[in-house]
């Protein structure tokens, strides 16, 4: 400091004042006991007056479960590893975000229709949904990976612009269903040709077992194909899953209620359990319907893994061997699979080391020798004897493993080679040596499910990466499925595991010897369509029932183009959920949950039988019905209960199969406002097979009611009392015929205008 210079005259400190009575810090003495000296300038303590602090009301930083899970108590302090990439640098100030100004209205078609030029918005505001690269916000994954929500405007779910999330021809799956987390794995298996073909081919068989996972998965995949790039709700599949004992016991099922946080925290674990339950049940369901004498199950041939377990006593050397078949393989880090490290050649640190060591697990344990009654040290060896064409891996990674993987380039390998060698499997990342090449099977990565974390536990969810061969363009591309968002993604991004928010969970490799074609008509081989020509009541016979339909005869067998009229009625299981604000706005969170209660299908082709119903099925509903909606549905309490009903009551499987057959036989469906009917029945009918009178007579923004149209065009009074689906289907049929007439005579536009 300058005062140290000798050229400047010496300064002396001012003499201190003498009267100093010390004050202890906790003494109750006013702080202004000590006065201020006189001041002529702004005090140092004065704060820049124009500074504005904006942290009030900032939502607190949550200490998320991954920190707590990894915390250790060291000398009375809880210490945990810190993930800088995820939580940002130390002492990072949390930004204020107002939770109120979440303007999501631009997700609605009705908004887009009235606000066409959206380009004036700054690009920052307009979030690119398909952004897949890491953005500069450290605590958030890129938009394409975010947990998606469906928003409901006052126009209902139809107003939500699903298509803006998907420009591919692959179908996305909706959230807001029970167990929506399973969407990820359902999508993954959809793109494994062996599984797809197996499941779809099974639909040829008339399987009316309650809650058959195999059948429901088949329907789901068929409907996803038919949706062709739109969105689909796996409600029937989930309903089957909900009543599956296996699933309930493993704690898999969760009603789509509001306790999402608890589920979200462990979706990664749950999906692995679901993977096992799903595959096991496919096998079970196949067994139920297989011809007893057939020795092989198709499912086993596709994904069954034979494991030999050898138990060798360390003391006596006695050995016992057991073989069983599992449907998925748990992948653990090499060091946990065997105490003997560095077995053979050193594979690069990659998933291949996990795979190889997990196919040959050696553990040492003490088990109770039943003969001697004493504990005995044994070595247990689980060895995979044969890899099936499709291998499903459940990957188990601890925090440290995951952190290590993030740092390894190309940890996830798109292919590997497996050689069977003396009852063991060796894995190679490459086959330069042509000698082994002949005895090796090449396996390619089909895709995987990854857990995506967000800022807090409730943001956790699952996405799917799948490699799909495009038959038309003759090229193979990677796709990202994030519920109803579907987008192509570069392979480098798909395989990139360097992000903090990404954790692979379930992976599928398949033997790539076979090219692997999807057989979209697999159901047609040996199709059993008998259900269309007979009754299949849930209880009893035609005796004592009010039958309002005339069974279809073989002579009337539906052909492609056969016209049928349809109408369905529903009952409500759960009421709608909404929130009110004091300014009178009402925001819909979830529409009411409805289920099919009655379907009527009428013959539609001109002729004497036109308008005569051939299906009029009431559907058994066992779950608690919240509201029968009698004035709309015509369903009375008791109608859907086999014990009390006098209606033609069938199980959902029965009526669903009938409708599914009609779609696949190429029938053309006539009805009024069919979108909602199809959505609730959970079918997807190709556009070419739909004639919706609500669409034909669409005027301006308004959908005209059936009742109104019937009165105006047919001079007919309908829906005077409770609705009746036979009557409504008939009216729609007449309207359609009227429409054709008007169209032909060229009077349609003038009528519509009036």
């Amino acid at each position, binding site marked *: 400091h300058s005062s140290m210079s000798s050229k400047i005259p010496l300064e002396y400190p*001012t003499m201190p004042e003498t009267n100093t009575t010390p004050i202890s*810090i906790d003494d109750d003495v*006013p702080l202004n006991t000590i006065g201020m000296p006189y001041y002529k300038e702004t005090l*140092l303590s004065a704060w820049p007056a124009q500074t504005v602090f904006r942290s009030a*009301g900032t*939502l607190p930083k949550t200490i998320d479960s991954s920190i707590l899970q990894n915390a250790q108590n060291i000398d009375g302090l809880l210490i945990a590893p810190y993930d800088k990439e995820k939580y940002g640098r130390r002492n990072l100030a949390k930004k204020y975000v107002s939770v109120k100004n979440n303007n999501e209205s631009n997700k609605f078609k009705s908004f887009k229709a009235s606000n066409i030029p959206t380009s004036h918005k700054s690009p920052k505001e307009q979030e690119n949904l398909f952004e897949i690269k890491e953005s500069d916000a450290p605590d958030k994954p890129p938009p394409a990976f975010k947990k998606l929500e469906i928003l409901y405007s006052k126009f209902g779910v139809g107003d939500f612009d699903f298509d803006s999330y998907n420009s591919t021809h692959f179908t996305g799956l909706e959230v807001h269903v029970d167990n929506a987390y399973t969407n990820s794995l359902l999508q993954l298996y959809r793109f494994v040709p062996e599984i797809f073909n197996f499941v779809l081919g099974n639909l040829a068989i008339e399987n009316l077992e309650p809650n058959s996972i195999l059948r429901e998965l088949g329907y789901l995949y068929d409907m996803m194909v038919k949706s062709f790039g739109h969105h689909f709700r796996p409600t029937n599949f989930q309903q089957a899953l909900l009543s599956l004992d296996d699933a309930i016991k493993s704690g898999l099922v969760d009603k789509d209620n509001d306790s999402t946080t608890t589920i979200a925290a462990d979706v990664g674990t749950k999906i692995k359990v679901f993977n096992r339950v799903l595959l096991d049940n496919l096998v079970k369901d196949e067994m139920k319907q297989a011809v007893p004498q057939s020795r092989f199950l198709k499912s086993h041939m596709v994904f069954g893994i034979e494991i030999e377990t050898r138990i060798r006593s360390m003391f006596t050397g006695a050995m016992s061997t057991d073989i069983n078949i599992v449907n998925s393989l748990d992948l653990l880090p090499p060091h946990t699979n065997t105490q003997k490290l560095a077995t053979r050649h050193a594979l690069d640190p990659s998933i291949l080391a996990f795979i190889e060591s997990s196919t040959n697990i050696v553990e040492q344990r003490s088990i109770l020798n039943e003969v001697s009654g004493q504990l005995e040290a044994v070595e247990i060896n689980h060895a995979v004897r044969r890899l099936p064409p499709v291998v499903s891996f459940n990957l188990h990674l601890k925090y440290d493993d995951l952190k290590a993987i993030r740092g390894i380039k190309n940890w996830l390998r798109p292919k590997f080679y497996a050689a069977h060698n003396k009852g063991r499997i060796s894995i190679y990342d490459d086959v330069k040596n042509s000698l082994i090449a002949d005895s090796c099977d090449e396996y390619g990565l089909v895709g995987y499910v990854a857990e995506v974390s967000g800022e807090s536990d409730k943001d956790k969810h699952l996405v799917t990466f799948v490699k799909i061969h495009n038959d038309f363009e003759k090229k193979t591309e990677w796709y990202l499925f994030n519920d109803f968002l579907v987008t192509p993604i570069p392979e480098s991004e798909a395989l990139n595991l360097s992000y903090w928010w990404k954790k692979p969970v379930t992976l599928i490799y398949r033997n790539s010897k076979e090219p692997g074609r999807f057989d979209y008509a697999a159901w047609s081989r040996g199709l059993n369509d008998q259900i269309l020509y007979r009754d299949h009541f849930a209880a009893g016979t035609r005796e004592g029932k009010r039958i309002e339909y005339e069974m279809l005869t073989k002579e009337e067998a539906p052909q492609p183009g056969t016209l049928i009229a349809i109408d369905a009625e529903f009952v409500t299981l759960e009421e709608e959920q909404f929130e009110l604000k004091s300014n009178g706005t009402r925001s819909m*969170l979830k529409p009411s949950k409805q289920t099919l209660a009655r379907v009527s299908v009428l013959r539609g082709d001109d002729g004497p039988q036109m308008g005569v119903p051939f299906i009029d099925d009431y559907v058994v509903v066992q779950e608690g019905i919240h509201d029968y909606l009698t004035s709309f549905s015509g369903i009375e309490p008791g109608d859907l209960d086999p014990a009390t009903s006098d209606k033609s009551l069938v199980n959902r499987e029965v009526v669903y199969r009938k409708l599914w057959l009609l779609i696949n036989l190429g029938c053309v469906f006539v009805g009024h406002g069919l979108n909602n009917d199809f959505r609730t029945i959970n079918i997807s009918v190709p556009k070419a097979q739909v004639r919706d009178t609500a669409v034909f007579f669409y005027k301006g923004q308004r959908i005209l009611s059936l009742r109104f149209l019937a009165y105006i065009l047919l001079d007919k009074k309908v829906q005077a009392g409770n609705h009746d689906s036979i009557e409504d289907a008939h009216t729609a049929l007449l309207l359609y015929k009227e429409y054709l007439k008007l169209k032909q005579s060229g009077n349609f536009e003038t009528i519509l205008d009036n």
Partner: protein
Amino acid sequence: PQTSYPLNHHLYAPAPPPHLQIPLKGNEENSSKFFLPNELRESLIKKNESTLKTLQHSNLPELVNIYYNLVPLDNSLQKSNQTYGYYSSLYKAFSNDDGKAYVLRRIENVKLNQDKSISTIKKWVKLNCSNITKIIDAFTSRSFGDNSLIIVYDYYPNSKNLIEQHFHSNLGAKPEQITPKILWNYTLQLTNAIATSHSKNLPIRSLTLTKIIVTSLNRIRLSDCGIFDILDFEDFSNEDEELETINLLKIQDLQKLGQLLLSLAISSSPNSSKFSNNEDIISNIDIDEDFKSALKYLLNESNPNIESFQKIISKKLFESLNQIQEQGDYYESQLTRELENGRLVRLLTKLNFILERPEYQSNPTWAQSGERYPIKLFREYVFNQVDDRGKPVLDLAFVLKTLNKLDAGIDEKFLLVSHDEQTCMIVSYKEMRDLIERSFRELSN
């Protein structure tokens, strides 16, 4: 040689009146009751604690509308549906809007007949009365997993309702004895509350002992207003019908006030409770005639109204007035002790912002010979004094003295000694202040 710089500004002076007579003898009825300074401090600390308290592992929703960090306030273990016909619960929460604490009253699993019933709250939100807990908003929420009606109020930490205050307290504290003075005081404040809301055509409806809270010494407020307006919403076809209903509810308010005051009065003179009819009870209560006639008006008059009641009690009102005014005077006088606190907080915060930042560790300006180094030595000079045996000196007076001099930036010079005790520098508070100010400005740019 230099002149001295006396520290003789902004000093504390003996507190202005009202002067407290300490100690108060227990049975001595003082003109008014104050907190003693220590009591006041303690009660404020507790309030602060209650306000800031959050719940670590709760299964309450993270966010309800714009409110976060919910903490249940209900002391009772069992939920009751007696008051509203629905189960209800009470939470403290912070607002994302302004960061302040509010109270959320949650009515569980509500079915509202009409969407617009919730808009009735707007009239309550506009109401300002110092004896009614301010109403902020109302909305329904599915965050709890049901269809909850939430009404948001101002939060008064550690407030008790009259049952807890005077009858049986869940918190283990002894209930406070009701004196005629307190009774009149309450009467006045409740009358004020009712008069204010009735003047806006808003009946209270929920006038019970549990819905009146004591928010600070001798101050009561009606809580939970506006709920019945939503739950029992009626869509009137014409104005006359509506006015008639409102008038009926207003009369009921006054009758409830009568009942409420009666039950408080009875508890203050237990002998009266032997009697069965109101007439006999009232005449046997040990209280002044003015109160008795006030009670009789409320309980016997067929069409009581609040204006007439105000006239009846106007005289007694003035006596309570003294107390309220003195309370304010007292707070003001206490405030004179605390005038410099804010300044010192600002100064200390500034200092701590610039000092010992980890990112400065390799910054040459903060190193031994750097230009910022004196700030470091100054901090040690102020806070790390030792006596001649090396024992730390923890003298608040010295700290305040030096900080005040720094704050004013006077020319007084003092000696800073380097860590190795080999060199020292003579700096003035002014130079020190300029250096700190410069560092702070640099940091904030």
